[in-house]
């Protein structure tokens, strides 16, 4: 089954702009639709209701946090994100949708994603220089989502591209089966006894950049969803549902 949508959660700042670009590239490669979801953080609104609420910019000065200011800023940023998404979508010739949701960051995408969707987390892996430097990696745990991740990984790597498949906690038999499955492709199959955040991070640090596809429901996907600091990998991570 092909990827249906490439979904990207958007907030503010350069990070989102880069995410949009990365998501557009992936969507184009997979012939999928691109969907951007801009999140208005409810916690901030609640905070803004307090008289003592302040926010602090990079210059270090504290300013009062007001709900109406937040609304205005969100509208401005959302407009910018929408334009950015549409521009990237047009550039990569993919169909795009944009949506603004209000909620808590952890729950933002949980209502949106469906089977076959890919959520883009992180950026930079698909930029030409990064692509030259590192292969497309797939964390394979035998789940259906992992099969879809493998399929997407093969398409993203292309005929000539390099693909690395990390088999989670598997024995030699699983490795051989995967090698047979990838026969004829420039793919490297390796075991990953314990696919923890630390292990993945260590493996990625060997050769930073590139793409990492992880199946939804895996330990890595859960760590990413929880916003764990240690899950900020030096690569673009695609969570495949």
């Amino acid at each position, binding site marked *: 089954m092909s990827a249906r949508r490439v979904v990207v959660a958007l907030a503010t700042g350069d990070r989102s702009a880069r995410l949009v*670009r990365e998501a557009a590239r992936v969507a184009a490669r997979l012939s999928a639709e691109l969907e951007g979801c801009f999140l208005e953080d409810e916690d901030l609104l609640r905070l803004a209701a*307090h008289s003592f*609420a302040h926010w*602090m910019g*990079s210059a270090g000065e504290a300013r009062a946090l007001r709900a109406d200011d937040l609304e205005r800023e969100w509208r*401005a940023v959302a407009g910018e994100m929408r334009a950015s998404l549409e521009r990237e979508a047009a550039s990569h010739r993919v169909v795009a949708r944009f949506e603004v949701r209000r909620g808590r960051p952890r729950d933002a995408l949980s209502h949106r994603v469906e089977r076959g969707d890919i959520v883009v987390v992180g950026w*930079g892996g698909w930029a030409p220089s990064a692509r030259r430097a590192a292969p497309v990696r797939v964390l394979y745990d035998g789940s259906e989502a992992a099969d879809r991740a493998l399929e997407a990984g093969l398409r993203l790597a292309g005929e000539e591209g390099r693909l690395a498949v990390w088999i989670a906690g598997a024995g030699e038999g699983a490795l051989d089966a995967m090698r047979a499955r990838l026969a004829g492709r420039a793919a490297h199959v390796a075991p990953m006894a314990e696919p923890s955040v630390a292990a993945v991070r260590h493996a990625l640090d060997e050769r*930073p950049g590139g793409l990492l596809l992880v199946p939804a429901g895996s330990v890595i996907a859960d760590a990413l969803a929880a916003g764990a*600091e240690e899950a900020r990998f030096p690569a673009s991570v695609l969570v495949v549902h």
Partner: protein
Amino acid sequence: MSDHPRALTPSEVRRTCPPLSFATTDEVEPLRGLLGQARAEEALRFGVGIQKKGFNVYVLGPSGTGKHHLVRDALASRQSPGPVPSDHVYVHDFSAPDRPIAIAVPPGRGADLSEAMKRVVEDLADAILAMFESDEFRTRRQVIEQKVEARHEEAFAHLAAEATRRNLRMLRTPAGLAFAPFVGGEVLDPDAFAKLPEAQQNEVRDHLEAMENALRAIMHQVPAWRREAREELRAVERELTRLVARHQLAEVRAAFADLEKVTRWLDAVEADIVQHAHAFLPREEDGDGAEAAMQAALSERLHPTLRYRVNLLVDRRGLEAAPVIEEDHPTVERLFGRIDRRAHLGALYSDFTMIKPGALHRANGGTLVLDAQRLLTSPAAWDSLKRALTHRQIEIESLGRVMGLTTSELDPEPIELDVKVILVGERRLYYLLAAYDPDFDQLFKVAADFDDTVPWDEAMQGDLCRLIAGMARSDGLLPLEAPAVARVIEESARWARDRRQLSAELSPLSNLLREADWRARDRGGARIEVDDVRGAIAARDHRLGRLRERSLARFADGTLRVVTEGAVVGQVNALSVLAVGELAFGQPSRITARVRLGRGEVIDIEREASLAGSLHTKGVMILSSYLAARYGQEQPLGVTASLVFEQSYGGVDGDSASMAELCALLSALAQIPLSQSIAITGSVDQTGAAQIVGGVNEKVEGFFDVCRACGLDGTHGVLIPAPNVEWLMLREDVVEEIARGRFHLYRMSSIEDALETLTGRAPARVHEAVAARLATFGGRGAPRRREEDRGR
């Protein structure tokens, strides 16, 4: 033929070439070199041989004398043409980008340097990219990044932990960070907050303030951490890039270690590579659309690798001796080179790779041959060349800059100049430059002066035969029969306007031979015969003869009045030459004189009407002096005479009519008529002696043509100064009529000879009559106005 004692024989009016000792020019060894230019050849040999400042050469002489040929010959036959000079390259000056550096390298090595640097540039990007992708660099970079990241994370983790400890959580706002009090995983509701005891509320506020202060402290530190990390990373990049650059440049350095300036430049290249290592890397984000195109274009223009290239300005590969360059179109740009410009995003720009060489660059260390006329008529070229020769350096300047029209552009380092310049030009240009340009004598100390004519002696005649034979062969012409060659030689003497001389001009000779060849082929001949040469001469005269024929027609129909028979008091036919382009022909001018009571003046009506040139005025003053000296010794001349060229509307100059004017004046005074069938040309001095004049052949032939049109009856002729007899080289038809006695030429040595020939009386009788008339004027004080007409 006339039996007049001063009449000239046919052999005195035209020199004929003696029979030649060959049948056709096929038997004649061609002449190598030019026709008699020994002086010029010697000067040229000296000029091209001497290697001292200012000893440049000006080859002067009329066009078509083979100046260029001789220059090439002299340069080719030098015993020591000099060594092959240096190559020259331009490279980027990293400390002054608008002032490219000129470097001289031994001949042939400029291309090596250029190729070597091209290879360096090609390999450099990959080498630096490989360096940035190397495990060493990536590891070191990660260490640095992780260090700063760790500091960052540690600080924020500590902050987050502290916040949690204080029941706070850090949130990201659209523009920054904020702390919120959390209770049970939710942001504390304002109502709940309001219900808290005041002390607890204050505690929350204190916590918030404390956390904000802590966040502020971190915020203030973050830029410093990043700067430190950047500097640390930059130092690593520099260290590794220097290694790469050294490795890449090592081969070039070794190959050019003997050239200090190249080595210095390579040092600068290495430093610049280290400084701009990042420019070799592909951009992290490749944008799209117009912005990306503009970025790409800008990068291309400004890419540092361009600066490491070598512009091979002058490449001496293949040369075996010092170069000889002939620049046919010596503009400033073609002499001094130019700096091209490229349109880029609507602006023009240039860099050192767009510097193009000029003729001076190519000729540097050798010889540059230029046409003087073209050089002088090319804006600013002469002044620029003089400046270059004076300062001995080539400075590339656009014409706009020379003339102050542009201000900002590249200013390449001047190149040391050591060149021999040979200017080839006309004589008048040489004299004008010598007279009006104070620098000229200092810069062009050698003059190679080509003769217009050479003596017609046996040796030179032989050389001319050989020259004709050589021309016929080199131009693929039919061979010339000996009589045809003889006729060409005679025509050459006519071009020289002196039968003792031959013309040294090759151009008319070549043209005549080609036209005779065409005529010979046209009639199906296998050789050029004398009639082919005659036909070619006549055809050329005919082609050029429109003005002459119109002039003759105006004499024939009476528009221009000239009397060619009978005798008239105070009137004489003088002769003048009209020259238009290649055409020069003579025609008679009627001079009349009138006298009246006065104070001894001779009024030159031409001068009074501002139609006389200074030489003519001088001639009239000389004859006045003659009159005063001859007749005014004892009493003042009580007469005023006036002289005029009748029907002259365009101005008169020269003194060749002064003898005619004196004759007319004496006739008017003596009341003795002058023959109108004999024209006269010659100047007179204060003693009455006849002096030589120019254009005597054209003048005689001009009067002959007019008389023939009116009908030759044996009375017609021309009086010429005795010294001019040696110049006579008249047309064959004129000589024939002289031989038949239908036209005459007379030599005169003095006014007495002229008076005797024109009046048919003894000169003494004429002088007596003049004296008597003057006495009459002086004694009675009034002229007898109509007596002058008695002789008509």
